[in-house]
């Protein structure tokens, strides 16, 4: 999943990195195929090199040491609001068929479960030129409609973003633990593009809360290369994010 996330970053792009797995994806991309990518972090950090040592969160000292700039949240998010950020990374408790994310309220049966909330996710979802969503794939995490819309994808479908006043953006990919999805430009719905090695389409369908579309030329996700694995081990030596 980290390697797949890294491949979504193109060379020279301005990337809103976010938390956890994408931290590692950015480090991999920067070390391999996107040496001119620049990362923005909502705490105020701008980096054009991987962190100086393995980190758990964006606020860890090795992410500050060697940064290009350390500034404020509003300063960094002004680049996002201006429209300069090419790609932002997101995750959540739930994602639905239009790529809307919920990180606020979940449920176990009748019981409501309060999650930590948006953080910067709603901002990244609203303002990036495109977003990439990383999710653990389980049926309860892939409902037809999110219970609470924290971070907007394509809302209720075509033209929704324009109608609510969003000028750009929307999800381009969902990288799940079972496969990789794109979005159909006409319907704005998630479409299965590839399954990870050893995963079947039936498995994806059984873990998805709606009748998910599958691309006719469905492929198999490329395994991480030796180079990608080497970088992963360098930045996640304890296997904290990659098991």
């Amino acid at each position, binding site marked *: 999943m980290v390697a797949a996330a890294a491949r979504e970053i193109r060379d020279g792009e301005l990337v809103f990195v976010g938390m956890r797995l994408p931290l590692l994806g950015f480090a991999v991309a920067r070390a391999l195929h996107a040496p001119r990518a620049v990362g923005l*972090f*909502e*705490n*105020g*950090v701008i980096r054009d090199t991987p962190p100086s040592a393995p980190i*758990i*969160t*964006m*606020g*860890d*000292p090795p992410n*500050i*040491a*060697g940064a290009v700039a*350390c*500034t*404020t*949240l*509003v300063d960094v*998010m002004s680049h*996002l*609001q201006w429209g300069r950020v090419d790609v932002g990374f997101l995750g959540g408790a739930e994602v639905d068929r239009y790529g809307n994310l919920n990180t*606020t309220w979940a449920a176990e049966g009748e*019981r*409501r*479960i*309060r*999650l*930590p*909330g*948006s*953080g*910067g*996710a*709603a*901002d990244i*979802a*609203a*303002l990036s030129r495109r977003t990439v969503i990383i999710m653990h794939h389980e049926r309860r995490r892939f409902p037809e409609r999110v219970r*609470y*819309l*924290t*971070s*907007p994808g394509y*809302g209720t479908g075509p033209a*929704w*973003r324009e109608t*609510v*006043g*969003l*000028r750009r953006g929307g999800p381009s990919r969902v990288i799940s633990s079972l496969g990789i999805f794109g979005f159909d430009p006409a319907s704005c719905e998630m479409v299965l593009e590839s399954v990870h090695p050893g995963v079947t389409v039936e498995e994806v369908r059984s873990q998805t809360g709606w009748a998910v579309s599958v691309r006719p030329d469905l492929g198999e996700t490329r395994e991480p290369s030796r180079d990608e694995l080497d970088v992963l081990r360098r930045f996640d030596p304890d296997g904290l994010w990659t098991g």
Partner: protein
Amino acid sequence: MDKLMPLDEAVARYVQDGMVIAMGTGLESCIPFAAGHEMIRQGRRNLALVGPISDILFDQLIGAGCVSHVAAAWVGNVGAGIAYNFRRAMEEGIPQPLAIEDHSNLTVALAVSAAAQGVPYLPTRTALGSDIVRDHPRVREVTCPFTGERLLAVGALRPDLTVLHVQRCDRHGNAHLWGNLGISLDAARAAGAVLLTCEEVVADEVIRRDPNRTLVPGFLVSAVVVVPYGSHPSPTQGYVNRDGPFYDEYHAETQTREGFLAWLDRMVLTTGGHAGYLRRLGDTRVAGLRPRAARLAVPVNYGF
């Protein structure tokens, strides 16, 4: 003016029940845990906490029964995800019901920025279409008077008090900060009063030698307290690294209410102060959090 005072005195003087307090504004760094713990020890009640990503400090204050309101974008555990006291308060009203004003990082930052600039609101394009801003007490949809576009107006949120932990300052409160700054600067400008805790107090001359690094001017500051390791377990760049395992231990220990109360008793209520808190952590652990090597900036020349 000399504003130096001990932590217990600063909290006794400047933190009252029912206040709106901005804390944890650094976003994962320089979170003023020591000051928060003193508020718990002094039994403050019905605080309204403001912060984008609050670290586990908000969770601790909520669990200790000090908090009735939170305005935040994220309340959790930066190491382990879920914050159990926040969940118990939101889901079951334990130890008391909690009213939350949900935000995104940018909307809460703009609410504080509006207060910092002395204006009633600031416009933004963020969060349009999100359920966060539906029926929100501080966010309204507006039409731009210039372009006719649909925008959100984020109303000013003025804290009574902002608490910051900084690397160094002089006894007047002129503070040098470096590393990621989050919304700390606007939070200081927006507040009725500022309480600074710092790793070290330095001579006035040290501040004046590098005025670009003075990001909080002393005229905003009411109290200065020297509290080395005052941000533990969060990092303070150049002084203290993150205590990563602490977040996992806290997560495991506070899963039940009983577990949290035992943690609170051991790490806050019976420590007598921050020095006692550090003794509970143990000398080896505390010493191990110091940076292993210095990374000094090249000096800049202010000559004329």
